[in-house]
């Protein structure tokens, strides 16, 4: 470790100098830490930065900037080869607390103390580059999404390997006669362009197509995945896009809707095949049907079948109705829907069909008998309506994701891996079904979807991509679409969520872009989002390691494998630098060069704890840097105020909080500890997917630790904070302060 030459800069601009005594802060740095200290009234201005640069020339390689929030001016305070540590004086001290008060001054001084302590325990990380990287993107699935991903990736200059299990490209999209509109004025069905796409992909010199082939095994990490194929070949690829698409829901399970009872009940996929052939005839006698009924939500949004909405079936039925009308203008078409879902511009499409005279009935089909007599519970007329004289029924069935290859047997998994995987396959995600069920649906079977894993990942956490119920891959759905919980593996198209061809093309393009990002990040040794650009890597000192395997089990991204001896081994480019392993380790042997349990522990101890007589409690807030910390900044920006007894330390994720820190804090005299992080659970907002959930689970066991210290359980609180919660945060903090007041001061003070 190179020795640090540290300088501290105090900025008195933005009202900091008016609210706190800068000399007091300077005194803290110089007398307590013996570091050189400079005060400037406009540090991020050219003059202030010039001052810093002249010091860099003199040889400083680490600096503490006590000014605004680390989230502000990050680009101004970035200097090559110099580690910058920020102390937040502006948003979280002077903007959110009264000027020139003793408590505000104490808070500012403690913030400076914590930052200078942090500097002493932290060194700038070096990039770790090992092995040769591949820049090839492997796309699994040669349907519309896969073709688009391959085409778009090749267009940016990357080589693509396209793997398709069938012997032809095009997938489901090849069966479609026309597609839903994606171009203005969005009023009529558009020609299916998948054949053109197949041609451009086949002719692209950058794209290698492997047909009739599946992935047998994938090992390695982003930048160097080693992929074995079913034909015995092997290749190293940089990133993977999974676009395995979907299959229609098994209509054989829909006997109550007449499928299998009458041959004139067909699915929308079967009708689409008729339309593609150009011969519309009902199966029983080959007659052109004069009255056609479309039944929406056939086996969808239904407790007993697919509980979710596939979002495209309404549009598909409208498209098929228009095509039927075009082929035979006299055909009568009824569409029986529960809720007609025509998102976005599909509304225009809906209007076209209304204008064309398609009749829409809102209601739920109760029964379809063998002579096509339909009983509808009509929602508008509020009565049961019999429909007679129907000549063909089309069931609009939903989409099932191809998250496994159902053509092949599932791999054998030992019991432990199976258990681990099942804990990832979330069967308890509550899905509310509008109009179908008042209670959220929970599935009871704890099993993986049938079939072979698509990538067969050779990861310690098993071969599958972690999935939600119904086989959709788990990801931070809103912030990071295309993402999976395996770095460098991206999903696109209907395997991610039900979608139409237009959406799938956008999805595939996005996933191709993410794959390129993964390859580039791997080459530079930097992290993917949300800590994009981070160079630090968890370092595991194996001497104290007890092989407890918590880090390998808890890593949300499966980044840590186990060696044959049972020791953890980090796969650098799989790592997203959340620090969940660091929080998990019971012997504190996992650390980053700029983020360690010892570092946070020292920061906690750097705060001056007033003794009991002063009646100034101290509360430690360990705050998630993704959402909760910016929300606290916004409290200051909005000039709201929160208790000045709180000392705030940002953490990478609540998952990186080692419980030893909580007991450390209480033993040095803090009256309480509050952990602020993202929402855990099924509808999580955690940026590392499982981090805050793991923190919550760990914290549920903290009361035993508190009991052994003869402390009250109320002293530790975990608060769910979203980025929009800034207005409510002061109240959350205030109520915690009140609780601590009623509990009384920490008896460990002064020890």
């Amino acid at each position, binding site marked *: 470790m190179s020795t640090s030459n540290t300088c501290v800069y105090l900025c008195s601009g933005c009202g900091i100098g008016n609210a706190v005594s800068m000399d007091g802060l300077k005194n803290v740095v110089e007398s307590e830490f013996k570091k050189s200290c400079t005060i400037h009234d406009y540090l991020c201005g050219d003059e202030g930065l010039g001052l810093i640069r002249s010091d860099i020339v003199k040889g400083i390689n680490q600096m503490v900037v006590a000014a605004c929030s680390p989230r502000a001016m990050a680009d101004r305070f970035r200097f090559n080869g110099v580690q910058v540590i920020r102390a937040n004086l502006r948003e979280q001290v002077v903007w959110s607390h009264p000027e020139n008060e003793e408590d505000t001054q104490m808070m500012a001084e403690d913030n400076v103390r914590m930052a200078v302590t942090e500097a002493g325990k932290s060194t700038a990380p070096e990039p770790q580059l090992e092995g040769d990287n591949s820049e090839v993107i492997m796309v699994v699935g040669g349907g519309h999404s896969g073709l688009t991903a391959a085409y778009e990736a090749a267009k940016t200059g990357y080589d693509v390997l396209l793997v398709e299990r069938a012997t032809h490209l095009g997938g489901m999209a090849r069966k479609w006669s026309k597609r839903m509109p994606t171009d203005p004025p969005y009023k009529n069905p558009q020609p299916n362009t998948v054949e053109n796409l197949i041609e451009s992909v086949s002719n692209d010199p950058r794209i290698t197509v492997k047909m009739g082939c599946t992935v047998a095994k994938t090992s390695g990490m982003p930048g160097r995945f080693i992929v074995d194929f079913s034909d015995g070949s092997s290749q190293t690829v940089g990133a993977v896009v999974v676009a395995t698409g979907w299959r229609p829901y098994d209509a054989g399970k829909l006997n109550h809707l007449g499928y299998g009872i009458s041959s004139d009940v067909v699915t929308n996929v079967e009708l689409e095949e008729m339309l593609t052939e150009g011969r519309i005839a009902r199966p029983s006698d080959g007659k052109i049907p004069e009255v056609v009924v479309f039944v929406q939500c056939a086996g969808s949004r239904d407790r007993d079948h697919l509980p979710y909405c596939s979002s495209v079936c309404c549009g598909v039925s409208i498209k098929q109705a228009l095509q039927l009308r075009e082929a035979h203008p006299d055909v009568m078409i009824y569409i029986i829907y529960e809720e007609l879902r025509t998102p976005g511009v599909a509304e225009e499409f809906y209007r076209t069909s*209304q204008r064309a005279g398609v009749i829409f009935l809102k209601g739920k089909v109760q029964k379809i008998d063998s002579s096509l007599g339909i009983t509808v519970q009509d929602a*508008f*007329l509020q009565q049961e309506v019999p429909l007679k004289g129907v000549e063909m029924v089309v069931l609009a069935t939903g989409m099932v994701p191809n998250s496994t290859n159902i053509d092949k047997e599932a791999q054998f998994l030992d019991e432990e891996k199976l258990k681990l995987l099942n804990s990832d396959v979330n069967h308890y995600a509550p899905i509310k079904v509008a109009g179908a069920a008042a209670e959220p649906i929970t599935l009871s079977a704890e099993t993986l979807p049938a079939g072979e894993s698509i990538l067969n990942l050779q990861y310690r956490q098993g071969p599958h991509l972690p999935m939600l119920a119904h086989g959709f891959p788990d990801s931070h759905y809103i912030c990071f679409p295309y993402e999976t919980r395996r770095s460098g593996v991206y999903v696109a198209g209907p395997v991610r969520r039900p979608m139409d061809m237009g959406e799938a093309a956008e999805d595939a393009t996005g996933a191709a872009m993410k794959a390129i990002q993964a390859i580039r990040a791997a080459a530079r040794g930097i992290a993917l989002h949300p800590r994009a650009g981070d160079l630090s890597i968890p370092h595991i000192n194996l001497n104290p390691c007890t092989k407890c395997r918590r880090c390998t089990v808890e890593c949300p991204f499966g980044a840590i494998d186990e060696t044959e001896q049972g020791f953890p081994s980090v796969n650098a480019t799989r790592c997203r630098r959340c620090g969940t392993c660091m929080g998990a380790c019971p012997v504190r042997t996992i650390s980053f060069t700029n983020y360690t349990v010892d570092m946070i522990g020292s920061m906690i101890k750097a705060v001056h704890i007033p003794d009991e007589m002063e009646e100034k409690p101290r509360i430690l807030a360990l705050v998630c840097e993704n959402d909760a910390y910016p929300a606290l900044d916004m409290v200051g920006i909005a000039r709201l105020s929160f208790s000045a007894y709180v000392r705030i330390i940002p953490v990478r994720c609540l998952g990186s909080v080692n419980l030893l820190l909580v007991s450390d804090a209480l033993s040095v005299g803090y009256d309480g500890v509050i952990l602020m992080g993202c929402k855990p659970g099924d509808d999580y907002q955690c940026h590392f997917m499982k981090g805050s959930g793991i923190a919550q689970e760990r914290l549920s066991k903290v009361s035993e630790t508190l009991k052994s210290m003869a402390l009250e359980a109320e002293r530790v609180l975990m608060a769910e904070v979203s980025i929009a919660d800034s207005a409510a945060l002061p109240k959350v903090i205030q109520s915690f302060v009140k609780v601590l007041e009623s509990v009384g001061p920490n008896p460990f003070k002064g020890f």
Partner: protein
Amino acid sequence: MTYISPLPTRKYDLSFARWVHRHIDGGDRLAMCMQCGVCSGSCPLGTTMDNGPRKTFMMIRAGMKDEVLQSDTLWNCVSCYNCVVRCPRDVPVAYILHELATVAVREGYAQARTAETNKFVKGFTWSYKIFGRTDERLVSLFYYFQDGFASGLKKLLAFRHIALGFLKVGRLPFGMPHSLRHRRELRKILTAATKIEAQPAKGGR
């Protein structure tokens, strides 16, 4: 009853809906109705109607002709045109209700004979046909005494406070009703209008 429009025989028989589509002014826009209910929701009398416009339109589609033409929805419309202004699909709701009311009259539905609004309209029509103007006193009297002398007297007495109030502030004039100078011209217009009405409309506005 003398049916002009077809009477559907089963649910979702579209014969009546198609007739409305073709013969009712604005009826062709009915196909665009997406049952959002903005019309019934914005109707100041929506709560007093048995069905309201949204359901009426669905019933037309469902082939429930008798129920539609017997409903009081057609007669409770006060022509505020809230529904017409607010309809996201440009369905001329109030116009369609008025025309359906006319159909109910022509086909002799009972509701048309007993609806108070229809009785009032009769007085209104009587007045403008004679004078070319509506004389409020005469229209009211016509409306009151339509069902016989006894019920007319009863209604008259029930409204006497209002009448006396008007009298006090000089809003109830005595003397002959005002009449139009060119009554013959008006009669010509009305004759022409009756002729046009008798012709089957060709859909569309």
